[in-house]
């Protein structure tokens, strides 16, 4: 009997993670710890990066099989909400409840800056093709430049689900780094005179306009790019909830508990797609490089189009608000504000930058729809 016990314990130990650890899993666990560190100690978008990093840790525990591909595991079931495209629109519902499109309605030309900044997406698409990615992969990588997590995850889950982990990590990391990435580019592309433009106050927007806006956007965008209807529709439903003022119960739940639950499930299961065989590849390094390029190109496109508007408006538009067109709401808008204040301390660009900022959310969703349409 003693030998039986020794045998059984031996079997358990032979079947344990200690005897089945592959070095790549070890590396992945270290990477997940670095990400946890970035999320917790450095404050890199912790609401998503912490669940993503922990999901990555779980997915690379040897033997346990807690990854998004292993049918029957907890994570696999949570992952279905990503795979079937359910979570990102639900997060957009919550974001819609928290977004004020007022500054965009007050100055609709901001939409153009939100469109221009999507240049980063398509330029990076070309770059990714050049680095050897398939068109579907390249499209998913490009969308990192949209600086909208749910849009990136939605698009990637359709076009290139095997890259979900890398793309999500890149997207959220660079979003956290927006205050470091953008300012040098903004300063390099603008003159001191341009940066010093003080913009007039925005007009008041009536409640009726704010209620009509989400309906109008849903219709126009969904008509032109039907593939972005799920994202834009839910974003606008949330906004209609908020602006109508008639369904406070639903607004509160959509922007709090529902969004939080979905965020946990999405974060953990997207992280758990990053098993070592999917993540420890040259692709991931390329994606991280391309993601940075995407953010830089997006910023540059926005600022350059801002310069164009500066010229055509006769110097009334400060090109610094163009960089906010990449979205990364509301951080990119704050960056515009700060860079502007360095020139003219009393200049208050924030509200003007919020216009392109929220336009960029719509713009990225449209770009995602186009990519899904052409490549999907």
């Amino acid at each position, binding site marked *: 009997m003693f030998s039986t016990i020794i045998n059984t314990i031996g079997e358990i130990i032979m079947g344990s993670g200690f005897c089945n650890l592959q070095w790549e899993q070890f590396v992945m666990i270290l990477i997940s710890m670095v990400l946890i560190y970035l999320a917790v100690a450095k404050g890199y978008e912790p609401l998503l990066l912490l669940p993503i990093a922990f999901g990555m840790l779980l997915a690379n525990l040897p033997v346990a099989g807690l990854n998004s591909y292993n049918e029957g595991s907890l994570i696999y079931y949570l992952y279905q909400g990503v795979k079937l495209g359910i979570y990102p629109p639900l997060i957009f519902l919550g974001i819609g409840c928290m977004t004020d499109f007022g500054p*965009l*309605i007050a100055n*609709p*030309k901001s*939409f*153009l800056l*939100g*469109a221009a900044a*999507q*240049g980063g*997406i*398509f*330029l990076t*698409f*070309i770059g990714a*093709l*050049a680095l*050897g990615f398939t*068109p579907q992969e390249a*499209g998913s990588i490009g969308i990192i430049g949209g600086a909208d997590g749910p849009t990136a995850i939605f698009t990637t889950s359709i076009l290139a689900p095997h890259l979900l982990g890398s793309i999500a990590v890149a997207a959220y990391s660079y979003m956290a780094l927006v205050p470091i990435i953008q300012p040098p580019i903004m300063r390099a592309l603008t003159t001191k005179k341009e940066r010093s433009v003080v913009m*007039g*106050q*925005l*007009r*008041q927007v*009536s409640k*009726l*306009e704010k209620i*009509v*806006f989400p309906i*109008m*956007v849903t219709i*126009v*965008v969904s008509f*032109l*790019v039907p593939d972005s209807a799920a994202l834009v529709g839910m974003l606008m439903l949330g906004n209609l909830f908020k602006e109508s*003022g008639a369904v406070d*119960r639903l607004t*509160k739940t959509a922007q709090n508990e529902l969004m939080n639950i979905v965020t946990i499930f999405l974060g953990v299961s997207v992280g758990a797609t990053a098993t070592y065989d999917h993540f420890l590849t040259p692709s991931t390094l390329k994606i991280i490089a391309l993601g940075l390029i995407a953010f830089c190109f997006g910023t540059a496109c926005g600022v350059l189009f801002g310069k164009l508007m500066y010229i055509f408006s006769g110097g009334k538009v400060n090109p610094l608000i163009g960089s906010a067109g990449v979205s990364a709401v509301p951080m990119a808008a704050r960056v515009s504000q700060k860079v502007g204040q360095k020139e003219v301390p009393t200049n208050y660009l924030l509200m003007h930058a919020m216009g392109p900022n929220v*336009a960029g959310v*719509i*713009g990225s969703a*449209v*770009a995602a729809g*186009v*990519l899904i349409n*052409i*490549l999907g």
Partner: protein
Amino acid sequence: MNVDWMSAFTVLITGMVVVFLALIALVLLIMAMGKIMSMMTGKGDSGKPAEPKAPVSAPKAAPAKSEVKPAMQVEDGIGDEVIAVISAAVAAMMSAEGAPAGSYAVKSVRRAREARPAWAMAGMQQNTRPF
């Protein structure tokens, strides 16, 4: 490498064109909406900054605002009076305690989040109605 550059640039151009198309359409529609609104309400000035209007309507609110710090979060639907009361109570207390004015601020005033479903006098609460 065997990249189909032609398709690639097609995607680039097409993508940007469609994004601009969509957003330009929205620009035009929102401008139109703004026009219609200002026509309907007869306020020709709705397209201009709200600056000149604000002071007219806000003279009574202004002093209250300067007293209450901007960090204060007030939930919709709580009357200004109630806030004023609470602010005043705290302010009065502070001066009574000898604390320097301005060193404290009401941080948050909010109404109870959910009405308890107390039938006490008026029957089931509003919430139940729509189900």
